[in-house]
Structure formats: structure tokens, C-alpha cells
């Protein structure tokens, strides 16, 4: 799997219920939408009707929260079948889920829990991603999560863990820039070191979101504007990874659609500016190309 296997979608936003009518009636100028897979694993009704309409006018990506790749429970076959059916029906540009576990013992925590970064967890997750990709008959993306605890047993860093999993499972990476920032604060690591360790060709998508500051820790709440420090980290990511589709996530205190569009536009402007001004980093050995510019498609707004 390499990034070129996937289209560059540009700058999108998450499809959320409060905006359904606005999107269907106004057809806002947005490059693409990301939809939460589980919200559409229903028999019918308004959600399906809206998704059909949205899909007829925009590219979409299916983003799941319940695959539970890190769980020691068996993979949920019924869930994977529903996901495959959803993908057949709506033809997403790709499918993603999180590098985490969401439950055990047949129970679901409805949360994204971190794994210990151990050889055991690594080979467990690699095996499961390979099985999922076989079932879905396509490569998937795994996303780094925000975390609030780390395990004493870990023998590697989070960035070593995700990079190694992506290589061994031959899957893509959805890099959540805000999650890197949040976890860097919570576990006191350097977010730049994280970015620099991620294999360039594996990164297919970014997430941009807001978090909340609780003093002792940052929480990944998706209820605030993207913070300046996260924008700065995003800019640094662009210089390293080049043309990667970006997506704005907002799940709580959801603002008017215009605010999401402004945020997606800001992501585009930062990208355009970075593409015009090559820096030292874009010339270093890890960069996509050595021409001094990130690899940009001819018309990334198509």
C-alpha cells in the first residue's frame, strides 16, 4: 500500500446530524465528507437518505469507531460484514478506524482505549488488520488516538508502534494532528519527534480538531476550534508528508456549518502557503520529494 493508491480529496469536514438539512439543501462547496460508519449501519430512514444524497454530490470516506482492532475479543464478523456492505453501497474513497480497543468480554466501552506498546499487542493488531483488510477486500487506514494513560509494560514509543504496525500490516495511516498534540502533552513527548518517525508514504489522511485543557491533562473533546499549536503542527506535517487529504472533526458544541467550512479553508490556505515556501525540512531525506516542494497534485481542488 502507498499513498498514490488513494485519491487526494482536498479539505473536508465530518458529516454530522445538525448539518444534514443545510448540506442537502445548499450543497456547500466542501471537497469531501467523512462519515461515522456506525451511524449508517441502520436499516433505513433519514440518515441513509441523507448519505445517498451526499454521496451523489461529494466524495466520502467511512470512519469507524467500533472495530476494536486492539481488543482480545474475536473480531466482530457481523460488524465487518455490515461495514463491507456499507462500503459496497456508498463506495468510499477509503475506510478507517482507530489503533485502540473499545471493549472486551463482549462489552463495549464506546471509547477509544490505548494499547500497551508491546510485541504482543503489535503482532495481535497486525494479524487483525490483515484479516479486516481481507474481509473488506481493500487496504484500511488506522488512526492514532488521544490517550490519558500509558502502560508500564510498553517497550516502544507510540510512534514506533504505529509505524511498525502500518509496515507489517501494510495499511495506511490517518494521522490525527490534534491527537498527537494532546497525547504529547499528556505523556510529555515531543510531537515533532512523533511526526518525524511516521513513514511518509503511509499517511493518507489528517484529522484536525479542537481539544479542551484541564490543567493536568488535555482532553480530545472535539468541541473547540483547532488551537494555534495544532495548526502549527499541521503545517509542519504538510512539509514532511506533502499532499495529504485533511478533515475537520467537530462532535460537540457543533457550530454552524460556515465555521466548519472556514476551518477547512484555513487548512487549505496553510497547505497552499506551505507548498509555495519550501523549507529545510521539505529538503531533508525524509521528505516526499527532493525537489524542495511537497508533492502536489496538479489540481487538488478537483
Amino acid at each position, binding site marked *: 500500500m502507498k499513498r498514490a493508491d488513494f485519491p487526494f480529496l482536498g479539505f473536508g469536514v465530518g458529516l454530522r446530524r445538525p448539518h444534514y438539512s443545510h448540506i442537502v439543501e445548499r450543497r456547500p462547496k466542501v471537497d469531501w465528507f467523512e462519515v461515522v460508519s456506525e451511524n449508517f449501519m441502520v436499516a433505513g*430512514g433519514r440518515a441513509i437518505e441523507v448519505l445517498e444524497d451526499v454521496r451523489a454530490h461529494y466524495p466520502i470516506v467511512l470512519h469507524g469507531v467500533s472495530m476494536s482492532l486492539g481488543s482480545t475479543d474475536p473480531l466482530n464478523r457481523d460488524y465487518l460484514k455490515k461495514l463491507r456492505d456499507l462500503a459496497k453501497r456508498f463506495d468510499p474513497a477509503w475506510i478507517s478506524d482507530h489503533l485502540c480497543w473499545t471493549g472486551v468480554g463482549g462489552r463495549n466501552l*464506546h471509547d477509544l482505549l490505548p494499547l500497551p506498546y508491546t510485541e504482543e499487542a503489535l503482532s495481535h493488531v497486525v494479524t487483525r488488520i490483515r484479516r479486516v483488510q481481507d474481509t473488506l477486500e481493500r487496504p484500511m487506514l488506522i488512526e492514532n488516538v488521544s490517550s490519558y494513560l*500509558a*502502560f508500564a509494560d510498553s517497550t516502544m514509543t507510540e510512534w514506533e508502534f504505529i509505524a511498525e504496525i502500518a509496515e507489517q500490516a501494510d495499511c495506511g495511516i490517518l494521522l490525527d494532528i490534534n491527537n498527537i498534540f494532546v497525547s504529547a502533552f499528556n505523556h510529555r513527548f515531543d510531537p515533532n519527534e512523533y511526526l518525524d518517525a511516521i513513514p511518509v508514504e503511509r499517511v493518507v489522511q489528517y484529522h484536525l480538531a479542537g481539544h479542551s485543557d484541564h490543567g*493536568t491533562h488535555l482532553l480530545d473533546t472535539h468541541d473547540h476550534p483547532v488551537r494555534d499549536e495544532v495548526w502549527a503542527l499541521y503545517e509542519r506535517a504538510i512539509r514532511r508528508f506533502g499532499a495529504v487529504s485533511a478533515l475537520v472533526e467537530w462532535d460537540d458544541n457543533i457550530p454552524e456549518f460556515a465555521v466548519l467550512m472556514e476551518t477547512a479553508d484555513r487548512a487549505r490556505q496553510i497547505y497552499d502557503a506551505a507548498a509555495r515556501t519550501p523549507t529545510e525540512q521539505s529538503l531533508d531525506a525524509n521528505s516526499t520529494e527532493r525537489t524542495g516542494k511537497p508533492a502536489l497534485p496538479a489540481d487538488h481542488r478537483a
Partner: protein
Amino acid sequence: MPTPLKELESLLYRLITAPSGVGEGLASERNLPRTGLGAIVLGDERLSAEERADIYANMYFYRLLDALKEDFPATRKVLGDDAFHNLVTGYLIEYPPTQPSVAECGRFLSRYLRDHPQSVDAPYLADIAALERATVEVFQGPDADALSAEAMRAIPADQWPALKLRLHPCVQVLDVEWRVADLLRAVEEGRDWQPAARGAAKIVVSRRSGRVRYRELEQSEYRAIDAARTGATFANICDLVAEHSGALDPVAELNRLLARWLSDAIFIV
């Protein structure tokens, strides 16, 4: 030796879902190393291992509380915020989520309320929760083209008697002991609500143009819908309406009911 992954996940699951918090959950863990949770989860001067696990415990509870608040506004209104919070605490112990979609977490709330002490003061709670849950299920129930007036007119008259009306696949008919439909409507419309009166009723929940609607069924209507469910013909349904409505003009009565069924998208052909 690292803790096996399965053990680690099971331990965290127990701590995160412990009803009185991670601290109490830890107290009942017998197999933890002498150094406690700190041997497994890293703590620092900002947050201890226990406090870090507690962040997840809080998120677990409040995420589900929020989801249930959204799906059960009338149940919550009747109980008040504090009692609803306590209800959810108990409910999650008895019915912890097992499904990939968080929308499924309220599936058993009505069943849980049947024998709950809160139902002594407000015995209609289980019925109101059942109605609220039904609206959630119907909202995302299967799609099908509802029977329309035009489609009905297009059917030749001689085919009517043998015609079988089929129930729309998302329609639900609830059997309740309390008149809860008015209560839910009052809450949805932001009006003052009255406790539901005792009285057996059938409530039909259906969906038209993506919107869920519900109302009590008249006796003759219920008979007709129930018969349609088991394959009755239009002629059978006419007989039932004539027999149970007590109307002087059964044809006019049937026309009145048909108009309601069309507008509520009860049937398909």
C-alpha cells in the same frame, strides 16, 4: 513479565465500569501486584495511575448518560436530572453496552424500569421509555414505499376485496397500560406535562418523510392493523371495521381510517 493483553484489558474494563469509581473498583481487585495499579499504568506528579484511569471512567459514564438523555427526554423529565443520573448508573450495571453502535445502549431501559423502585411513584415510566425507544427504532427502521392515494386509485375495483395491505416494515405497535403518548408529545413540544393516566392503549409508531409520528389507535383500527399483519385481505379488514367501529356508516368509517393510514404511512402494497 508483561501483563497479558487480555488480562490488562479486562482489568481496565472492570475499573472503568466500576459503579462507584476506579478507587472502589481497585479495592475489590485481588490479583493486583502489591504496588497497585501503578505497576501497570504509569502515573506522574500531575496525575496518578488511578486518576488517569478515572478520566476514562468518567468519559464512559457521561458519554452513555448523554446518549440516553438524548433518546429518553420524557423519561428524564418525569424523573428529574438527579434521579435519571442514578437510574442510568444502575441500568449500566445491569445492561452494559454490547453493540458497536452507541444508539443501541437504550434498548433495555424500559425493561429495566419495569421493576425499578422509581416506577412505584411513576408507574408509567416503563411505558414512556418503551415509547421513546420505539421512536428511536422507527427513525432508523427499514425503508419501503408507503401506500399512496394515487397507488390506491390505480388498483382496479374488482381487485380490492382480495388485496392484501402489508404493514410498513418500520411500523411498531406498542401495547401500553398508561396513556403516555400525550406526555411524550408535551415534552417534545416543550409544554408542561401531566402524569400519564392509567388506561390500556395501543400506540402505533410510524415514519413518514423521515419523521417519526405516533398516536393511540382506535379499537377498530387496531383490529384492522393486527389483521393486516397476519395476512388479512381488504375484505376481511372491511368486515372488522364494520364490526368494531360501531359506526352507522361503515363505508365512511373505512374511508376515514384509510385516510389516516395513508397520512401516517402505515401500509405498503
